[in-house]
């Protein structure tokens, strides 16, 4: 509330369309969207494995994937920097191909994906676990291999949870600060995302910082509110697909 009171609407708008703010906003939206897509692409198979697989060390692996959820983001960022830095294990390997990650836009995406992954994976895993085994069993006896069953049965039935996980992951990626500033730095136009711009704005231009904060606030509210609506959707659909539903 105090954020809203601070700046009159017209002033707010003027601050938002200022080039620096726009750049940060655009960068944030683009990087967080890519990060979310990457998290989904990688997270779906992992969640599927966690939900249906039985193997040694599964608990340990699950804990490992969940770790970024509780880790201070700065620690995550430092870890990423050490791993992907020039002297890092992965960094040295990438350096051979002339690829340097730290302090690039790609590093922003990586930092966001890293901290957002557990939110998606845990939601999707729970979603897959909730799907009754009799459906996947039925699919198997109908000749559907694991891949087909996943695409046509498991994923559609777990879709509400998967989307909820994606939305949460996206929100987390959008708000990412600590890991980004450690691993990607704060270069306007390249790595300065919205939260970073807010932080910098606090020291130079308070009004802009407030304006950007308001944006994040509105966006987060919309996302969470939409999630709540979406969560109720499946039940609503089941009711409406009654006997009269002849498409």
């Amino acid at each position, binding site marked *: 509330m105090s954020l809203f009171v601070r700046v009159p609407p017209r002033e707010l708008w003027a601050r938002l369309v200022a080039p620096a703010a726009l750049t940060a906003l655009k960068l944030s939206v683009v990087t967080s969207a890519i990060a979310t897509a990457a998290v989904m692409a990688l997270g779906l198979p992992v969640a599927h494995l966690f939900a249906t697989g039985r193997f040694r060390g599964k608990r340990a692996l699950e804990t490992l994937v969940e770790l970024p959820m509780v880790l201070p983001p700065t620690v995550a960022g430092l870890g990423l920097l050490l791993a992907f830095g020039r002297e890092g294990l992965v960094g040295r390997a990438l350096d051979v191909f002339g690829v340097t990650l730290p302090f690039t836009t790609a590093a922003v995406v990586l930092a966001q994906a890293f901290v957002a992954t557990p939110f998606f994976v845990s939601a999707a895993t729970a979603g897959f676990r909730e799907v*009754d085994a*009799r*459906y996947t*069993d*039925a*699919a*198997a*006896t*109908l*000749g*559907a*291999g694991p891949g*087909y*069953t996943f695409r*046509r*049965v498991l994923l*559609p*039935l777990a879709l509400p949870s998967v989307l909820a996980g994606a939305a949460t992951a996206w929100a987390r990626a959008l708000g990412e600060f600590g890991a980004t500033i450690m691993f990607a730095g704060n270069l306007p136009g390249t790595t300065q995302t919205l939260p970073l711009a807010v932080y910098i704005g606090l020291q130079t231009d308070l009004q802009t910082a407030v304006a950007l904060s308001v944006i994040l606030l509105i966006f987060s509210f919309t996302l969470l509110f939409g999630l709540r609506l979406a969560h109720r959707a499946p039940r609503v659909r*089941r009711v409406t*697909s*009654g*006997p009269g*539903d*002849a*498409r």
Partner: protein
Amino acid sequence: MVRATLAKRRGDFRLDLALETAERTTLVVVGESGAGKTTLLRLLAGLEMPDSGRVEVNGRVYFDAAAGINLPAWEREVGLVSQDYALFPHLTVRENVAFGLRAQGAGRRAARARADEALERLRIADLADRHPGALSGGQQQRVALARALVPRPRLLLLDEPLAALDPGTRLMVRGEIRALLSRLECATIVVTHSPLDATVFGDAIAVIERGALTQVGPRDDLLRHPRSPYVATLLGINLFQGRVVRSDPGGIAHVQTADGLLAAADPGVDGDVFLLVHPQEITLYSERPAGSALNVFHGPVVELAPEPPAGNLVRVALGTSPPLVAEITSQSVASLGLREGVSVYASFKATGVRAYR
């Protein structure tokens, strides 16, 4: 041919059996809940792995513990209709039925055509665009059957096909399933807890008790010669075991059972025999009957149950020694004033008792 030997241990429960059945034949495995019926089907379908044994369908080996063969469920040509049908809630009826073909790589149009054909055959074509949630139990079952049959399985498994239906629907569906099964090219195995369903569906019947088959044979053979009290109870027949102690010249044998002496038509053999009394052979009286009947017992009515599908008959369980089950008309129940706890005399002729070894 379907040939299976299966062993599976789960905690205290142990399933260990062998069975064999052929194309165009329905084998019904009948037994109480917890006897291992569903487990048996899951082992055959490949949804669970046996500890040991072998499963072969039409010459193709699905499982062989010794040879290390274990085909996954989706590579076995086995259709399964589970007790609650498990129709995919997010797909329409047509998509459900076409699922198997699509999963095996058939084109959208071809799969759709075959699905529609199957829906037509089961007379549910008008439901094609509905979702399963909008169907009645009987309709869901037909969809489940169509879905399992469209991929042309070599072996069809039905788990308690009537359990999820209300009694009214059950009567109608029982006949439909029976007709459908008689037209199928593949081998069919039905598991049920209902002796009635077993006798209606089964060309052959296998009785499962605590994970083992205790009697297997053609339906009529089983009805005529049950070999354990459990099978007899299951089929609603009175069965006693005893020893022939004396044979009268009049063709009457006296048989000593654990619960007393019974008179039976002389089997012409000595020693241990089974005695079978059909419930309809037993007459009930409120007073001790006069006359020549040799087998007269006295005891309270324990239970009265209308006997479907005839509807007009009532099964009366008696607390006599030995315990008996009689089947009489509902008119007789009324005229005798029968209800639980009322004492009655039960009598049957010696010629109504069949003795066999």
